[in-house]
């Protein structure tokens, strides 16, 4: 399955909104198989921050591990935030 991050907004910087985004999205995983990969697409995102990302991406990584795949992004704030999350949480996202 593919998660289009743009559907949560163009500016994703608030930790609280990241938490709400995750809570709203979780029911979508109810019927996926144990092997299915989860792709995260950042196309058309304007601004991203580690706080929003920590609530959403880190939580998904903890739930799905390497099945979570972040699609490469050209947005500088997405890439800088992902780097910060990896460092802060001592983990490595699957990026392709």
């Amino acid at each position, binding site marked *: 399955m593919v998660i289009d991050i743009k559907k949560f907004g163009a500016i994703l910087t608030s930790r609280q909104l990241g938490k709400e985004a995750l809570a709203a999205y979780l029911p979508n995983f109810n019927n996926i198989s144990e092997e299915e990969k989860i792709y995260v697409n950042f196309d058309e995102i304007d601004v991203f921050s580690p*706080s929003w990302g920590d609530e959403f991406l880190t939580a998904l990584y903890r739930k799905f591990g390497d099945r979570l795949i972040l699609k490469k992004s050209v947005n500088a704030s997405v890439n800088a935030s992902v780097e910060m999350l990896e460092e802060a949480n001592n983990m490595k996202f699957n990026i392709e």
Partner: protein
Amino acid sequence: MRNNKLKINEAANYLGVSIDTLRRWDENGKLKSLRVGQREHRYYDSTQLEEFLLSSCVDIAIKWARSSIGEKPSDIFYCSDSSVFQGRLYKLRKALSENKEIESFFSLLISVVGEIGDNSFGHNLGNWPDVIGIFFAYDIKKKIIILADRGQGVFKTLKRVKPELKDDAEALEVAFTEILSGRAPESRGNGLKYVRAIIGKNPVNLFFQSGEAELNLIQNNLVLKIKKSKKPIRGCLAIIKF
């Protein structure tokens, strides 16, 4: 604010100054009224007042953060909660989007502003000492963005998870450099390290004060210059220049 004419007492109230101050500013040219003749009443255009406030936003923010008495700032600067702040971030994005000079770090600049503002709300939720919310203003022509809060400050917030911290200066150092993991029960705490990482690689400068300590982060440089402030503030003050 709608575009209309305000009497001198209304203008004074809007700007948070006395009528005598406005008369003095009219006479010395700092803020001219719309009065035609000496016998006419002084009037002020609402747009003119808004522009005047924006042009003085740094001074107003510093005064607001340092004041011993907490009062809500003017509506054009005041974000009472994080949803108002979020709405104004969209306005900032629109205001900056046409500036070709900052195209390469546009998203990073706004994410830094978002992190600093979000920090204020996140760390003070339910614990604001006096004014709830933050001061947020920008002057695109002067390339300056300012955020301030009258919250608990970095020292008090970090001391909960790092009791050995001694003072504001040490707290600032930790906030901008150390990864604080496992900050149970909350997972926040790395926003200012992100801010430092971004400024370290981009043409952005930051002045940040909390309590009695302040620091300067200079563009494309990771070195923190922390020192004791001449005048303490209640919460946090961030001045971003780009």
